[in-house]
């Protein structure tokens, strides 16, 4: 083999080995860091694994936000129209968090099926509903909202 061919072979081999290693690693680590979205109904049915970091969300139930008087601990409920999920969190809520609005919380579900959230996200502007939430809302709930809007 002449010098040029040898060089090219080295490069090709290097690319193949590196590519194989990289794709293996990426698939493995991606699997470790993917967070699934669950609806309140799924969590109520016990479908969400306990102690695994996940995201859940829905509409914040009116009047469900309760704050601790001495710290930033708080609790609120979200619903998809069928079931209700209790979310506990310590910290500052995002600006656009509001009762009757969509919210997503990220954290782990404990044995009482309460979501211990490390992060609460709300929509970025007033017209936007997170797609996960929009799709998870049961049709019954959306109908109710529509008729409510109609009678107003």
């Amino acid at each position, binding site marked *: 083999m002449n*010098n040029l061919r040898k060089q090219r072979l080295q490069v090709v081999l290097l690319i193949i080995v590196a590519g194989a290693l990289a794709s293996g690693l990426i698939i493995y*680590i991606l699997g470790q*860091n993917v967070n699934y*979205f669950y609806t309140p109904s799924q969590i109520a049915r016990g479908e969400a694994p306990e102690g695994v970091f996940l995201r859940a969300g829905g509409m914040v139930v009116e009047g469900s936000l309760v704050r601790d008087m001495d710290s930033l601990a708080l609790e609120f409920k979200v619903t998809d129209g069928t079931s209700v999920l209790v979310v506990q969190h310590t910290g500052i809520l995002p600006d*656009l968090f509001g009762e009757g609005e969509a919210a997503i919380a990220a954290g782990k579900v404990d044995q009482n099926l309460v979501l211990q959230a490390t992060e609460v996200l709300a929509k*970025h502007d007033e017209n936007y509903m997170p797609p996960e939430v929009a799709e998870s809302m049961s049709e019954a709930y959306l109908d109710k909202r529509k008729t409510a809007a109609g009678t107003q």
Partner: protein
Amino acid sequence: MTVELGHIALIVALCLACIQAVVPMVGSFSGYTHWMRVGHSMAVGQFVFVALSFACLTAAFIQDDFSVAYVANNSNTLLPLQFKISAVWGAHEGSLLLWALILSGWSTAVALCSGKLPLILSARVLSVLGAISVGFALFLLLTSNPFDRILPIPPLEGGDLNPLLQDFGLIVHPPMLYMGYVGFSVPFAFAIAALIGGQFDSAWARWSRPWINVAWVFLTIGISLGSWWAYYELGWGGWWFWDPVENASFMPWLAGTALMHSIAATEKRGVFRSWTLLLAILTFSLSLLGTFLVRSGILTSVHAFASDPERGIFILIFLGIVVGGSLLLFALRGPTMRSATTYSGWSRETMLLINNVFLVSSMAMILIGTLYPLLADVLDMGKISVGPPYFNIFFVPLMSGLMICLGFAGFTRWKNTEGRALLHKGVIPSIVSLVMAFALPMFMVDKLSWSNYSLTAVATLLLVLWVVTMSLEDLWLKSRGKLSSLRGLSGSYWGMLVAHMGLAVCALGVGLSTAYDAQKDLRMVPGDKTELGGYQFQFVGVERVEGPNFIAYRGNVEVKSGGELIVRLSPEKRNYTSGGQVMTEADIDGQLHRDLYVSLGEPLGNQAWAIRFQVKPFVRCIWLGGLLIGLGGLLAALDKRYRRRRLRKGADESSGGLVFE
């Protein structure tokens, strides 16, 4: 009337772009010189008409013409003038028009600066640029027309520009970013022209290099500005979230950086030819992907994207033609482009190859992490999101590896460098950086203990000092210790040095602000005090103030160090009157070695407020580093030899005809 004028101007620009795309290309094959020259004037004409169209849209914004749907959705009468203007590119339609404007601007620049290029090449380059223009103008006119009217009854008052976008950073950030994205269309067009002509010599590389550098400078500044904006405007102190929108701009930057380095080897040594071509195609494809990812709404929801099938299908077809077509051309023509020479050992070629491996694999893993959730959603595999740990696990080691290799950048020689000589050069810098990296973290904290001796800081300092000391040693050797000989060093060399130092400064900011970041979220009533990172914060109270288009609660926080008042911070909670949006406006006291960052959370009743206090050491270095990286690119682009050589080469070619290999 102005609105219709803008609409017609855009249609005229589309017609000119069609001529620019077709005529010079046909001319280049049939040898009609006057046909080949058509592209140049068309490019200039197209620029004039797109600029006219853009001016008309801007006028509609300034005049509050709410009969235009785009204006009505993104502006209102209360908006200050500068934000009315920046609202032009605040959403999908207008930002695409800005894209088209910048593209025609770059085409004009190519047309005006191509006097030294062989006519056949510049004709083909302009033709490719014209074809891209056609795609964008069609996309604008068919699916995203910013001039659509709401008739017969226009609204009296517009909606609102998202308050997050009402900020100086967002006036400048998108145009900068787009200058970068679109700038990469020039090397792309050069690559396609070279592939069509089957001619890909060092001259090609030399012509496209300054264009790549300039586009890359804009992209670098654009990304830095975006990160800076996120830091002070989103209000909670984060500066990079691995958000798909950020990734969309970062991927072309990584590919573009790889391109800058590989084309250096192509120009000087004639190696990596097909790889450089591929990178030019890749960088521009990623720019296109980035534009569409951010602006098409696909990220908000795959289904919203699908529910507007016109736009979605157009985007897919356009991307398909650009990426698929250029890759097909590459597959047909690429293999004929052999590298002319060989290299061995730890030569500069090898080091640049390693650089490219690091950069391109970083880009690939970001691409996978960004597109995977979209893919999973389309395939009904569940709603997922990829967390920042995924990106950090890959990105940190890859960049560390890159920085270790980067230390040797200046010392390597083309063709062959002896490994032992390189190691020899690395002895003093590695001793210096090892000692300082382990020693410095001891002085970064007040009371040293095992728990607050930060290993993150050690690792950061090790890498940063390694790059800095190696670069300085190289500078010392190159100048032989004489100040007078510094002037003799080329612009490219200074560019490399400054950009590499910039990367080190940026890494310093990232590493140290991560290692020593201090943060507290507290419930505070007026008079409450807290201590954080060696500073005492006292919450004095909250007052109500009125802005031009918002009402705000303004907090008052006194910061003391050692009993002495350093600064009063006034973070705000703003309520925008027109859209009813609430926004957190943090207050920051910034110095090079630390930022004090206070943001007002929500009122908790009984005068209590939730407040976030943060002390962020060296966080400013991140953007300072970004600016230095950009400055480095600019210095390299301004290198005298491009102008001189281009002149000489141009003379060669006009007398001796084209160089085929």
